[in-house]
């Protein structure tokens, strides 16, 4: 068998992640945003789970940074930031339990704008622990590498070394962890390390700033999709 190098090849016509981060419209689903599975509209995963807070922007439509330093913001602190930024961006999120009852998110949903069909949740340390307990109750936690890693991270009072889905081989697991690199991390490779070594107060500031940045990205994405 013989082979020769490929000398000409049309660039693939699907975007890279960096292109999507720069231009969230690239993932626009056409028409109104498709409701994600289980009516999850938007989720902010934060430092409670490994190192990866993220906005999940509708089914298949995602963008935004996924970095929060290794300090946990409380539900209240996080919600205050989210409400502050979203109100500036034109969302009218409500924390009224009656409004929240219309939405089901993976954890405890935090705020909802029923008019625009947008909900937000912040996954806190408490949410994580609740998930782990439920998984234990269901007898499947042994396979929930994520949950156990999160437990380890929380127990040690440090950040876990990344979420791990059982079944990935070592390299793939590490690749997933690396996939979580964000624009912020790419621009500043020491950001995460500094977050770990900073004093708690300044780390908390970093976490707050990162979350604020995520909310802004989220708003950009909503604009790109014609929601606001």
């Amino acid at each position: 068998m013989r082979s020769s190098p490929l000398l000409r090849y049309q660039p693939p016509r699907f975007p890279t992640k960096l292109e999507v981060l720069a231009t969230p419209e690239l993932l626009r689903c056409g028409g109104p945003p498709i409701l994600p599975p289980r009516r999850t509209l938007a989720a902010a995963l934060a430092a409670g789970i490994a190192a990866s807070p993220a906005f999940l922007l509708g089914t298949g439509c995602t963008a935004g940074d996924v970095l929060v330093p290794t300090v946990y913001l409380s539900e209240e602190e996080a919600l205050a930031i989210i409400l502050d930024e979203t109100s500036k961006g034109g969302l009218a999120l409500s924390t009224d339990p009656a409004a929240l009852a219309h939405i089901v998110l993976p954890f405890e949903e935090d705020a909802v704008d029923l008019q625009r069909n947008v909900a937000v949740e912040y996954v806190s340390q408490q949410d994580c622990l609740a998930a782990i307990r439920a998984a234990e109750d269901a007898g499947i936690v042994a396979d929930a590498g994520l949950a156990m890693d999160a437990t380890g991270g929380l127990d040690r009072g440090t950040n876990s070394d990344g979420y791990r889905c059982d079944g990935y081989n070592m390299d793939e697991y590490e690749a997933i962890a690396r996939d979580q690199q964000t624009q912020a991390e790419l621009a500043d490779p020491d950001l995460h390390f500094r977050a770990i070594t900073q004093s708690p107060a300044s780390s908390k500031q970093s976490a707050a700033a990162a979350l604020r940045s995520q909310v802004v990205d989220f708003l950009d994405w909503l604009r790109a999709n014609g929601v606001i």
Partner: protein
Amino acid sequence: MHLTLNLTTSCNMNCTYCYAPPRPGPAMSEQTAFAALELGARLNHESCGIAFFGGEPLLHKDLIAAVVERGRAMEKEGKGHFHFKLTTNGLLLDDAFLQLAQREHIMLAMSVDGVEQAHDAHRRLADGSPSFEPVRASLARLLAAKPYASVICVVNPDTARHLSESIAWLLDAGCRYLIVVLNHAADWTERDFGMLEKQYRKLATLYRQWTRAGRKFYFSPFETKISSHVNRHCYHKDRCELGNRQLSVDTEGYLYPCVQFPRAGHQSRWCIGNVIDGVDEKARQAIRAESETEKAFCRDCVIKDRCNNTCGCLNWQTTGDINAISPVLCRNEQLLTTIVDRLAEKLYREREPHFLQKHYSDAYPVLSLLEDLGYPGNR
């Protein structure tokens, strides 16, 4: 840095394509294995991965249990942090070991080459008899206990025609993490590659159907090829780098840059230390630098940055030179890239939600797992 412990050179199977056919010899001693743990803790201050490998590692379950127990004890003493993985042919998987794996969160990978005709073509028991039936029973036990376990499926020239059928069968059997590996060392012909191309195309069609149906699965190499474009900015970090992310430890405790090299022996230039004295950094760096040399053959190739040509271990196995690319690898990489890119283009054009989630959402693994755990339904 992670460590792969070759616990034994013995095996209860005799697969025709094994790059390290079973041979008699003493298994790794507990003392050597414990020394490897100490080394792992020194090399990796976060969580050191310890992969049990062989031969067939489950021939030495007691040693595995002892290593895991020792690792956990070291963790309690603040002397390291470990996670464990094991690759097995599955024949010796029993309830007791599966319980250990569940309790200690040992990630399991099992070798199954697909449907009976594909599997039995090469994966034979030590006496030469077929292994499909006992392996199928083990696979069911494995997935019942560890639903996220991965399955490694090796494709040979004579089994390529079963590839799409095999993957569909494994998925239907409950496997969600499927890793297909070509036997690059086999004698592939143009005709074999014609069949392989046909099968990849069938798989691309199935992948699209499965994705559109919302089925969750991880199918390498399709996922990795998509990732090589989507994550182009950091993909180079995911590629194989000899002696950079993991070291292989032979039964005597000698260190090598990857799993192929222990068979070269500790007097070869591939031996880069031992578990007692540690890594010979000069030797390791020399091998690493050599493996990072630009591959002359690939210099003008436009997909060289998305290719598996950096796998020095595979290159060495197929050509005897860590920098020489085998034609089989080159052709396979080109074939995969072109077919998988067209598949991804279609799914992107459709804005297929599950495809976009899988490849563009950093939160996907977490949210997917939460969904599997029953959220929000169990709240």
